[in-house]
């Protein structure tokens, strides 16, 4: 091997991303006795997992004994509008209870039932109360538990170290990555026998989002550049309840737990409007009157589910329609009211961070006043195409788990299924990557040419004088994607977005960065923009080619779901690994579900 001109590390398994999926994968590989390095662009414990609020879905049956994996599987497939990789949904439903319970061995403290079991709460699209939780800070509990476990195992963690690109060997197997240290701006290379991508989502390409600066689609883009396929990129979840006021916090998440615990949606006329938006698919299981819905909270056999707890795509579209029809609040949202329905003590105990968030940021006391909320870009269902059992991508040695992987959630994710996805498939990625390493089929060599090209591209903006400010490009990109590839889409707008994205590609090539390399946020953003633009192109292309409405993809010009489009995903690949290369989008047929699983969907209707 050539001597690296940079700081260089070697691991059996390199994990990119330190959220729930990455940490869970690391635990697995570490337990196998392999050497493991985790690289994260933030500090340990700050990944987006920390923002998950409501809970982690697992059919443990602690509150409703009738719950089991088969019902969870059915709910997940129906929520995903049947576009899911059925095998992922099956594994997820079967394994999540064990993954939740094992967290308690590592120190997690979930809220309890009266008989000392893990308490579970109601959420949209789940037939039974199924979300294990800690108040409304479940993501913090998950990440802290996994972080503390990883640290106690003595795992190497590279914090504030941003991966720029994956590196191959001569035969195209993945061989590691090239990164840079944010505090110093120095480059660093990692040779690894296997790489697990666990980089999260893409939401920062939209103007109103619940996502942090980190969600720039790095892993999605790196995988695509490295030769993997992305699927379902048009399926973006707009969470129904983001804050709308003050403007500076517009998009900030308001947990679905507010509705699970009794909160209802009203328009400016005071009407509980969700009863007007119950799709046929959910009519049989949804309450017809406020009276019936209100009985359900205490006893699920006394009435059917309130329409506020339909899957997120349904609720977000309904809110959008209410606002567009002139029945919105002064700041362009609708009201979410729990203060008039539950005691102040109950709200502060069950939803402490929501209480805190509205009190401090909006000056609203949610125990007395209604919240103003509206849809916010929250989650991408699409991602790297993986094998369900192993999380393996098309590129040998490369695995993907968590939000960066596609297939598990189909066209729409149910609340609570994300945290469980992280631990179920994080573990599976760790197992499979370890098997691959132990099988001895790792890479042969390390392509230093790829390293040099990535480094050259990263530092180019320093020597380009008079180019654009990366912040201007980011702001324009966010406004463009919000306007043209948002919650409701039309063919013309999508075509416009696709041509605009080519302009953005050129603008990125001509940007300039001021200052030095040490902890320079402008430079860091400049290295994010190629990823943001690459994934936005895939989203726009998927949105153009999926001429129907399904889950997190709504076309005003094709408002209904089509049986034909329900049989395939749209899969994207890129030519010769160049970030600005030509993207090809093709249909990729869904796996055929075995009859015994099909029967579950039928009988549970």
């Amino acid at each position: 091997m050539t001597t690296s001109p940079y700081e260089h590390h070697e691991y059996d398994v390199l994990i990119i991303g330190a959220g729930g999926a990455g940490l869970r994968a690391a635990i697995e590989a570490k337990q196998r006795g392999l050497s493991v390095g985790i690289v994260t662009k933030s500090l340990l414990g700050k990944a987006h997992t920390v923002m998950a609020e409501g809970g982690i879905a697992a059919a443990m049956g602690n509150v409703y004994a009738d719950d089991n994996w088969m019902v969870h599987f059915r709910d997940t497939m129906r929520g995903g509008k049947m576009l899911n990789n059925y095998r992922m949904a099956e594994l997820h439903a079967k394994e999540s209870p064990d993954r939740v319970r094992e967290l308690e061995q590592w120190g997690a403290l979930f809220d309890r039932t009266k008989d000392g079991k893990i308490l579970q709460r109601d959420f949209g699209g789940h037939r039974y109360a199924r979300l294990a939780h800690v108040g409304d800070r479940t993501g913090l509990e998950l990440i802290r538990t996994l972080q503390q476990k990883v640290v106690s195992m003595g795992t190497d963690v590279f914090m504030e170290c941003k991966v720029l690109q994956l590196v191959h060997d001569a035969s195209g197997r993945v061989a590691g990555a090239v990164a840079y240290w944010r505090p110093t701006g120095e480059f660093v290379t990692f040779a690894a026998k296997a790489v697990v991508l666990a980089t999260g989502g893409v939401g920062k390409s939209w103007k109103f989002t619940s996502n942090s600066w980190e969600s720039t689609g790095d892993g999605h883009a790196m995988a695509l550049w490295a030769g993997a396929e992305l699927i379902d990129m048009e399926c973006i979840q707009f969470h129904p309840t983001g804050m709308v006021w003050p403007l500076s916090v517009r998009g900030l998440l308001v947990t679905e737990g507010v509705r699970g615990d009794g909160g209802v949606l009203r328009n400016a006329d005071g009407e509980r409007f969700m009863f007007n938006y119950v799709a046929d698919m959910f009519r049989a299981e949804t309450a017809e009157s406020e009276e019936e819905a209100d009985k359900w909270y205490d006893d699920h056999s006394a009435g059917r589910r309130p329409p506020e707890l339909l899957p997120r795509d349904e609720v977000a579209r309904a809110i959008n329609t209410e606002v567009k029809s002139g029945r919105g609040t002064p700041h362009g949202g609708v009201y979410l009211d729990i203060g008039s329905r539950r005691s102040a003590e109950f709200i502060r105990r069950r939803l402490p961070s929501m209480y805190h968030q509205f009190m401090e940021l909006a000056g609203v006391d949610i125990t007395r006043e209604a919240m103003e909320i509206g849809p916010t870009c929250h989650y991408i269902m699409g991602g790297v195409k993986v094998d369900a059992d192993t999380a393996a991508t098309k590129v040998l040695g490369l695995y993907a788990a968590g939000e960066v992987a596609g297939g598990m959630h189909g066209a729409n994710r149910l609340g609570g299924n994300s945290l469980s996805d992280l631990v179920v498939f994080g573990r599976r990625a760790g197992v499979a990557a370890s098997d691959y390493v132990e099988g001895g089929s790792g890479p042969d060599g390390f392509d230093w040419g790829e390293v040099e090209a990535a480094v050259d591209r990263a530092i180019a903006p320093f020597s380009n004088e008079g180019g654009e400010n990366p912040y201007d490009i980011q702001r324009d990109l966010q406004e463009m994607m919000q306007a043209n590839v948002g919650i409701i889409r039309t063919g013309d707008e999508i075509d416009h977005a696709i041509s605009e994205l080519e302009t953005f590609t050129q603008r990125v090539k001509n940007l300039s960065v001021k200052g030095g390399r040490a902890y320079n946020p402008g430079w860091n953003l400049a290295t994010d923009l190629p990823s943001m633009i690459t994934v936005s192109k895939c989203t726009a292309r998927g949105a153009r080619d999926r001429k129907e409405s399904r889950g997190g993809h709504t076309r005003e010009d094709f408002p209904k779901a089509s049986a034909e489009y329900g049989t395939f995903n749209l899969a994207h690949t890129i030519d010769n690994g160049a970030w600005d290369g030509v993207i090809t989008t093709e249909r990729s047929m869904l796996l055929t579900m075995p009859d015994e699983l099909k029967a579950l969907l039928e009988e549970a209707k």
Partner: protein
Amino acid sequence: MADVTMRVWRGDAGGGDFEEYTIAQNEGEVVLDVIHRIQATEAPDLACRWNCKAGKCGSCAAEINGKPRLMCMTRMDDLPEGPVTVTPMKTFPIIRDLVTDVSFNFAMAERVPALLPPPMPADGYRMYQEDVERGQEFRKCIECFMCQDVCHVIRDHEENKQYYAGPRFFIRYAELEMHPLDQNDRREYVREEMGLGYCNITKCCTEVCPEHIKITDNAIIALKERVVDATYDPVAWLGRKIRRRTKRTATEAGVQPAP
């Protein structure tokens, strides 16, 4: 709204100074919004650390008008009229501008002896809400490290850092000590190696905690009481007499490694 003047400390380990930015502000904004606007317009290389902008991740701690605050949860309209001063946390070495090297905390985290639970029954552990609640309070911690920043045992005494875990880790030790499943005993370790005795309960940490954790009353004082019980236990006293030296590691202090 009227423009606001921000006095932001800029520099690195080699030194620095305040730079003033006079910039527009909008209704309802927090300090981090204004810092972001400075980045996007005048100073794209202004270093600040942040992630969630919702008070949940604890990344954006800085000293605003001299007090440790989360920039994302400090509303501009709650601050007094006049220039707003933003400086990095004082207790930690500067990386650049508002970003400090908080690796001290991660090094302390590595020294925490892990939870040691009994084997898990097939259907999971049974624990009761009243028993998990004490630990849950401490697990609200978002690791902003402002309690460490404000703790005068280390704020003005770099030399104490090697002997002193600080409030963030005292609540971690308290959490483990009160954990219904834990079978370890870290009391002697936290006294001898983690410097619990240095804390003279001035409650500065409790005052700055953005999660309103009662660090001093519920964690540190409770931990001190437990440690006193262990220290004056005659059997433990005899054991120390026989071994006649300070225990340097968790294992020597009788803390068992995690499975």
